[in-house]
């Protein structure tokens, strides 16, 4: 037997999806920028190719990242993806070895049992059938988990699962039907012919004992083919498009293509690669501390895919980066969110030109902007010559104790330093950028850059991680930019300051902008360990929490911010430390309002530990001693 009409739905679906994949890939490739095209071409013929294959195997099939952070959920994804892959692979081999001839069309492998029903009699055939049954059982176990997850998400260790649109539901149902219908169809056929292994064989024999197995099998083969065909046809229209696009994403990423700050092919591929796994939902503090369940990354991706109105989703986010960190597909979520914010700020009438915005946005007429400068009131930049510059930043000016501590540390270091914004300077520009107002931010960046250039300094120290990030990434400076924790670490390493060890137990809150956003984890902890006893909190490094005060979120209400801060301080002070240390003036201000534990910036802690500097000016005899020491040193 070579053909039967029931395979038609499957064939239609399969060839449709293959043609679609080729067309879509070509369109995406054409829309890449020139340098990205070159990157991708180079990536295909270089080391990146092997890396991509390895990553596809580990992430798309095995789902290693999900497996690591949530074994049950990982198993569910792995059994479906890897199991299906194995089933196709071994099915093809089976059809090739045992079929009538070699190199069969795909349907021969998929419906092998139907076309060779009496296969499985000899020992070798039977052991192969055992393997196929094992794979099918592996998939079905994952499917059971998936079905239960849909109704009781806690089964796989998740608090919330994603919501679906109607077409997704149809696709989901057809996906769910694929494997059970295969099981029943194969079992009935096996039952009729007395073949099959532990699963299909036994089930088949049991069914055949009281049912007309041979006649009943045929409709189930139809169902199997139909559900496969339906799933394939719906694939491009539903969230399941992520399965093929993720492969594309991996190749692009390994070739060195990044999201950047404009919409394009890569961000579109990323958006379509979201598997709606929901891991970003569980880590989002807006969800578990503030009761906001509509803005998480998966909904952002869905909103973009569906061309929905997503102003609130884009803006109501702390930009803490916890979801970027956890996303198993490696989607650069925050850069995509920033693209949405930016596009919106540079677009006039957003309500009606939202459709297909990733594609069409750049063709939309510009917003009403007169391009007059917004900050022409800023004075001409003048700055003192110095080796080291200190930029406190807006938030540090609101927390004068940090400013004072830094002045003390800088004085104690003996370096030739100058305080750029001593009398209050302009903002660094990052808050404007976070709101999507890049043009305005550029004005402030120009102003501050000139101040820095004119001073001739080689090092710029800032107390605020928000400033630190923007200085490093969006300014064109030829100075070394340091956060004060790094600067203090350098001072300690070079022996420029002497400190006492304070008999204190402390915990450390990693600020998002310093940690996940800038990758500075170790320096602050080393500085703290130098002067006090640092205890772990369970929310360290990449797993750190956002204080809730983030300027990345322009919509969050005061009460919700407060709620997040209270939740965070409760977790960080669980073992009742003497102080809660942080390295950001905004974090300090936000956290201090929410706890009775003393919240201290790392600079204040260090200033407290510095041996005898405060007496320098007031006590002339000490001053003299220092002079003596210096002259002794110069001898």
């Amino acid at each position, binding site marked *: 037997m070579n053909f039967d009409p029931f395979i038609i739905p499957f064939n239609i679906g399969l060839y449709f999806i293959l043609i679609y994949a080729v067309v879509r890939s070509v369109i995406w490739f054409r829309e890449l920028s020139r340098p990205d095209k070159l990157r991708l071409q180079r990536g295909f013929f270089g080391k990146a190719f092997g890396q991509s294959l390895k990553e596809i195997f580990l992430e798309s099939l095995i789902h290693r990242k999900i497996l690591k952070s949530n074994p049950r959920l990982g198993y569910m994804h792995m059994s479906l993806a890897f199991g299906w892959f194995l089933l196709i692979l071994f099915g093809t081999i089976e059809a090739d070895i045992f079929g009538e001839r070699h190199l069969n069309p795909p349907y021969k492998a998929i419906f092998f049992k139907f076309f060779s029903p009496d296969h499985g009699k000899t020992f070798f055939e039977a052991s192969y059938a055992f393997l196929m049954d094992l794979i099918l059982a592996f998939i079905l176990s994952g499917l059971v988990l998936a079905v239960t997850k849909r109704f009781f998400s806690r089964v796989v260790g998740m608090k919330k699962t994603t919501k679906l649109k109607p077409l997704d539901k149809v696709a989901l149902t057809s996906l769910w039907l694929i494997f059970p219908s295969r099981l029943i169809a194969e079992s009935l056929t096996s039952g009729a012919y007395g073949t099959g292994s532990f699963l299909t064989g036994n089930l088949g024999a049991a069914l055949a004992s009281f049912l007309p197995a041979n006649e009943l099998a045929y409709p189930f083969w139809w169902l199997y083919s139909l559900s496969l065909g339906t799933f394939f046809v719906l694939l491009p229209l539903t969230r399941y498009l992520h399965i093929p696009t993720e492969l594309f994403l991996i190749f692009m990423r390994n070739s060195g293509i990044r999201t950047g700050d404009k919409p394009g092919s890569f961000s579109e591929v990323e958006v379509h690669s979201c598997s709606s796994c929901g891991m970003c939902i569980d880590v989002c503090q807006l969800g578990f501390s503030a009761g906001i369940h509509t803005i998480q990354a998966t909904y952002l991706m869905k909103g973009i895919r569906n061309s929905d109105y997503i102003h609130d989703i884009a803006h109501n986010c702390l930009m803490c980066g916890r979801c970027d960190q956890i996303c198993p597909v490696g989607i650069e979520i925050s850069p995509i969110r920033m693209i949405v914010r930016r596009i919106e700020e540079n677009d006039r009438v957003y309500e009606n030109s939202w459709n297909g915005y990733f594609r069409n946005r750049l063709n939309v007429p510009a917003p009403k902007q007169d391009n007059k400068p917004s900050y022409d009131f800023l004075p001409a930049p003048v700055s003192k010559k110095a080796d080291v510059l200190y930029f406190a930043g807006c938030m540090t000016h*609101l927390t004068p104790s940090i400013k004072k501590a830094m002045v003390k540390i800088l004085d104690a270091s003996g370096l030739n330093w100058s305080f750029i914004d001593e*009398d209050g300077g*302009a903002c660094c520009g990052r808050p404007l950028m976070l709101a999507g107002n890049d043009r305005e931010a550029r004005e402030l960046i120009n102003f501050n850059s000139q101040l820095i250039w004119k001073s001739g300094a080689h090092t710029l120290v800032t107390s605020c991680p928000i400033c630190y990030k923007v200085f490093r990434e969006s300014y064109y400076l030829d100075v070394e930019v340091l956060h004060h924790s790094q600067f203090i670490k350098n001072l300690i390493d070079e022996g420029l300051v002497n400190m006492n060890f304070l008999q204190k137990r402390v915990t450390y809150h990693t600020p998002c902008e310093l940690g996940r956003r800038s990758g500075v984890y170790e320096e602050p902890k080393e500085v703290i360990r130098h002067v006090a006893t640092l205890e772990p909190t369970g929310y360290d490094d990449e797993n750190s929490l956002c204080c809730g*005060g983030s300027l990345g979120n322009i*919509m969050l209400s005061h009460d919700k911010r407060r709620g997040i801060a209270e939740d965070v301080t409760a977790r960080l002070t669980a073992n009742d430390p003497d102080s809660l240390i942080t390295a950001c003036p905004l974090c300090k201000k936000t956290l201090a309002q929410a706890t009775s534990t003393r919240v201290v910036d790392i600079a204040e802690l260090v200033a407290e530990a510095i041996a005898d500097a405060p007496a320098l000016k007031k006590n002339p005899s000490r001053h003299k001693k220092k002079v003596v020491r210096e002259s002794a040193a110069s001898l």
Partner: protein
Amino acid sequence: MEKFGFSLTKARVIDYDANDRSIVSYILEREPSLNLCIECGCCSAACTTGNFTGFSLREIHILLKRGENDLVRQKIRKCMLCGKCILVCPRGVNTRNVVFLAKQAFTKNEGYEF
């Protein structure tokens, strides 16, 4: 009749009721916390921009509520969105969003010039 040079002058009362409140209602709809503002001026005292100019967020809030949209439009773009005002506001007004929405109302809605 003898003319003494007197005449009735037009009333010089500023009629705020005649002003256009569309901007403030656009903002209030999306950021109701503006209603909580007691015009205490803490935000203006902390303001980064206020350090360089006479810009005052408290004034902006008052002007917005009065519907003095032209004045708001001239001033509002000076704000740097730095967020100091949020941290000092005793009433928990989400001040940055007020500025953000006001700018949005001017740039994105038809009929307003920025």
